[in-house]
């Protein structure tokens, strides 16, 4: 279910594109914000939770998920170079799984690691807040990568749809409409963070069992469907 050559082509394509700059810029921004907040307000658990929950988990993780997830396959399908992968006796699910693993790894590295660093700067992991949000970012990375990888196989406008989902649905709707919060990767991963801290400083609208089931279900379904899409991918002539 993993092909090292597909993995190499995928991460080189991902990190070699101009879009990859955002992968570096967002984590830097988070760490800078953390340092400023710490400097201004001092170490405060609630503030740390607000920054990590409000910016890192709500905005940065989904954005990096969009770039890594759609970028792992979308551009190849757009420009047609995916032919070179598809004209090989490599199982389509293997191609998708490999690309998913790369997308997850990239999302994790560029979102969970800076979340941990920012958390340590903000309050030195008091009440386990830094670790809790890092775990949440790791969990969310998996689901986002799977969803946005699927999006990359479905539409040419994957980045736009991905951004709309990440910014409008997750960040805006999620904080206003109760129903949207139940169907939000962010809330599911916060449920995991809640479990890690054990306290009430991190709370989610979704219980841990439901969150776990939803996270696994979404990841598996998205990956399965992306594999199907790739199997029946049609390459028509130039329009």
């Amino acid at each position, binding site marked *: 279910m993993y092909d090292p050559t597909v993995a190499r082509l995928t991460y080189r394509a991902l990190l070699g594109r101009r879009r990859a700059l955002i992968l570096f810029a967002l984590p830097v921004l988070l760490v800078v914000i953390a340092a400023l907040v710490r400097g201004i307000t001092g170490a405060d658990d609630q503030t740390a939770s607000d920054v990590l929950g409000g910016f890192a988990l709500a905005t940065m993780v989904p954005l990096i998920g969009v770039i890594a997830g759609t970028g792992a396959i979308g551009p190849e399908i757009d420009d047609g*170079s995916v032919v070179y992968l598809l*004209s*090989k006796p490599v199982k389509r699910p293997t191609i998708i799984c490999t690309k998913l693993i790369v997308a997850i790894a990239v999302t994790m590295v560029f979102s969970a690691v800076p979340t941990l660093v920012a958390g340590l700067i903000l309050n030195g992991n008091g009440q386990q807040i830094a670790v809790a949000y890092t775990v949440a970012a790791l969990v969310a990375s998996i689901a986002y990568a799977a969803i946005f990888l699927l999006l990359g196989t479905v539409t040419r406008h994957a980045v736009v749809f991905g951004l709309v989902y990440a910014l409008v649905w997750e960040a805006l709707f999620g904080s206003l409409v109760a129903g949207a919060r139940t169907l939000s990767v962010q809330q599911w991963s916060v449920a995991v963070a809640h479990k890690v801290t054990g306290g009430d400083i991190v709370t989610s609208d979704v219980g841990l069992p439901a969150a776990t089931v939803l996270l696994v279900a979404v990841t598996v379904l998205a990956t399965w469907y992306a594999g199907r899409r790739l199997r029946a991918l049609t390459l028509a*002539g*130039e329009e």
Partner: protein
Amino acid sequence: MTSINIDHVSRWFGNVVAVNDITMTIGPGVTGLLGPNGAGKSTLINMMGGFLAPSNGTVSLDGQQIWRNEQIYRHIGIVPEREAMYDFLTGREFVVANAELHGLGKKQAQQALATVEMEHAQDRKISTYSKGMRQRVKMASALVHEPSVLLLDEPFNGMDPRQRMQLMELLRRMGDEGRTVLFSSHILEEVEQLASHIEVIVAGRHAASGDFRKIRRLMTDRPHRYVIRSSDDRALAAALIADPSTAGIEVDLKEGALRVQAVDFGRFTTLLPQVAREHGIRLLTVSPSDESLESVFSYLVAA
């Protein structure tokens, strides 16, 4: 022996019928898929390459279905028409990656690069390559597993004459080795020079099949035009017009030539030298003036 069987295949895109009930078999040797732009060549090749499902009919390789069968790529090599490849890699990295995806390694990649004579530029980024160099690296990536079938969509597009000759030489060699090589083109000269067998498609339909001579023969009931220069144009014209195989003659004084329109191709070709000999006229040049496939196309479309 490997052959591709196309059995009553149609493909439509919405209301556009790109390929219309085509049945043909592509066997070993070099076959040219000839047709004007928009004829359905790419659509047909994409179906042979497993990248497009037929709306109707089946496309198979020695009895194995091609669509949704990735194991078929052990036997097929594909040179796509589109430009995009992994531009951020060097030529060598690209061909090695293609070899690895076939379960092969650096050795086979190096061999393929040598075959297409790209070793001198193999460590440059693909983004710096000329069109012809790209085409050759694509070719190397398609050859790396020594496939028995090679599919090429408009492979000579944008190549300079020297590169064109090299690629033709390579494809001819592959055909001689018993591989099944199919390439598409909308240019008569390319197909004429390279293909031992030609399939003509026009407006999605299979218009003709055979070697170049056979296709010409199919056209013999069509008026043929010749430009003839001789030692005595007027006398020749008078003698030719007496025969029913000659439909019309024009004496072009400025060019110093005769423009002859013949209706019976076979009869005219035996008549001409005979008449010349009888009248003591020397034939200087006899050349067909519209034997291009463009005229064949328009004839086929009208039929």
